[in-house]
């Protein structure tokens, strides 16, 4: 069972995540934030901002810990306490946001119209995942430290295609649930609205403001000297 959950599930989850996301991308039409702000804006404000701020900070925390475990495991004393407090705060922020989003989704008539089952499933999963995370952080002190020393080696072993689940199996049930939850959420990304984080518009920062598209290269298309091999049909045709 442990082998299944911690040895096989991560590979299934990541494979489905990667293949599913690429498959869903195809022409890009199926990727959208699916914003419902047009239908309801007031309740969305605090809910959406709280949730997104929370999840981004928490995600970055896990991410940095994964890549630079030494950074976290070497922290001690006051800075560790501050780090923990910040983590718990943003975790709670995300929970508040998620619960507000959930209530908005199931009570607002207009939002119900644009809600499907997967929206609710992923929202409940995220709420449970965040509650688990916050409980773990409070109950089992100095998580950022032992995450770096005990959990990251397990995660690294997965990505090294040599899963070492011994350390994982020894973990308490709460941590196990949190890890399985994470794999489940990753697995569900391509089937849910979560895909929109994959197309976060960072390229906007470096892009010039105005965008012009030509169906053909206007300088060469009418030039008889242009070789036919150089002319390609426009992609949007």
């Amino acid at each position, binding site marked *: 069972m442990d082998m299944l959950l911690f040895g096989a599930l991560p590979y299934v989850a990541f494979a489905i995540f990667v293949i599913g996301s690429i498959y869903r991308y195809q*022409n890009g039409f199926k990727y959208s934030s699916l*914003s419902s*702000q*047009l239908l309801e804006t007031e309740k*969305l404000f605090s809910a959406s901002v709280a949730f997104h701020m929370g999840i981004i900070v928490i995600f970055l925390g896990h991410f940095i810990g994964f890549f630079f475990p030494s950074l976290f495991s070497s922290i001690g004393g006051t800075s560790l306490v501050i780090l923990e407090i910040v983590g718990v705060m943003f975790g709670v922020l995300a929970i508040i946001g998620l619960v507000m989003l959930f209530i908005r989704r199931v009570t607002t008539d*207009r939002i119900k119209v644009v809600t499907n089952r997967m929206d609710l499933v992923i929202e409940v999963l995220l709420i449970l995942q965040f509650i688990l995370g916050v409980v773990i952080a409070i109950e089992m002190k100095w998580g950022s430290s032992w995450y770096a020393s005990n959990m990251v080696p397990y995660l690294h072993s997965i990505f090294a295609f040599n899963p070492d689940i011994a350390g994982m199996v020894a973990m308490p049930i709460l941590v196990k649930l949190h890890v399985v939850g994470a794999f489940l959420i990753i697995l569900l990304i391509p089937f849910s*609205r979560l895909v929109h984080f994959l197309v976060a*518009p960072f390229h906007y920062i470096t*892009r010039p403001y105005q965008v012009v598209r030509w169906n053909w290269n206007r300088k060469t298309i*009418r030039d008889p000297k242009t070789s036919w091999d150089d002319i390609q049909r426009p992609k949007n045709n």
Partner: protein
Amino acid sequence: MDVRAQISMVFHLDKCLGCHTCTVACKNIWTDRKGAEYMWWNNVETKPGTGYPSKWEDQEIYKGGWERTKSGKIKLKGAGKMKGLLNIFHNPNLPVIDDYYEPFTYKYLDLIESPQQEMQPVARPISLITGKPIDIKMGPNWDDDLSGTPDFARKDPNLANLTPAEQESMFQLEKMAFYYLPRICNHCLNPACVASCPSGAIYKRGEDGVVLIDQDVCRGWRMCITACPYKKAYYNWNSGKSEKCLLCYPRLESGQAPACMHSCVGRIRYLGALLYDADKIEEIASSPEGDLINNQMDIYLDPFDPEVIKAAAESGVPDSTIKAAQDSPIYKFVKEWKLALPLHAEFRTLPNLFYVPPLLPVMASVTQENDSDGSELNEMSKHWTDKWLYDTSIDEIFGTIEQTRFPIKYMANLFGAGDEALMVDKLKKLMAIRIYRRYKTVGDISQEKSDQALAEVNLTEEDAEGIYYLTSLAKFDERFVIPAAHREQSIEMMESTADVKGSTGFGFIEKPVRGM
């Protein structure tokens, strides 16, 4: 000089009768779909009025368009790289569905399936979003013909800088007037929607300047809705993508006029190509407030100038497009006769839809016979009823322009970026044409007066005939001069057309379903 062609439009407001045929033609072709019911890519507003979405012109509410910074550069008012990305989780300036209206239909089946009963059956309105019964509070043309009402006309954002006395004079029952303002996307040269799109989904087509949203790339960040000061980008709540007027480009590419223009009953719409210098866009969009319109006129090039023709050919503009630009009714209205003005140039998007401002009913006024004004009227004043005079007095040429029913300032707020002199110039031109035609057809105005009128506005007799012809007699092909798209020709040059049959026009056909 980077010469490009722009399909641009002129709407002649004097001829608009407010029938909404354009609106319905557009609706039936493009937005009769789930999620798009509330969108009216073409709509007709009554001015003074609040419009659709409500008070769209008030950028203190919606933060659309560009604004000039102290350093003389321009930046997006409510979007852009900083604000756009910071507000991506919740856009504080986004209009919500209630600012447009909640789309509705009626339960018509209740009328048919009603059992026999004492009372007439009723078809209750139901929301097209939730499907539940609603009380209709607003519609896309809710202020139609309701000029003067406190809820609509008096909340017109263009009244903001008018004195209370000026406002009052507009709303006296005897002097009340209104006109219609049909609106579509302006397909701007400096589009704020394009600049605001975090995904880079919105683009201007190089060949003809049509601004489009790539549905494959749009991710529903909804910054374009805020950034477009004309509120002509719409969010489809069902597909999670934004949509906008596409100037019927599949029709344009096959040489047909856009549906709204084709169907226009009053024949107020004109469409044609303008050549412009793309290198100057940023500089001109950053002009000081007072120079905006005059500078925008300078960006459009003279298609008869040999140097422009040479530069256009070097920039890859096809000969047929240059020819179309020479025949363009838009060039005549905008550049040659300088009769048409852009709507709200102060938004700095350099819009390509120009309006010939309405002269009537702005000019005429009603006076009581025993008034001191009434006694001064000449014989050309017409008796309306026994007591009232419908005053079209032109004894003093242009004497009445300054006494318009609408304060010039109000008209200038809409079409002149606040410049009243510019507005007076256009109205005088329109008046001069009337005087000229009156001299020609009725003959009760002397040639001397007609010449004087034309001279005062720098128009020749030839110009006046041209304006008269294009305004009232022009045929379909003269009102719509559509340059060939040349896509088919380009394909023929290099591959068998049979291979690409069915692949031009819309290449992307996908059911607009929400992602999972």
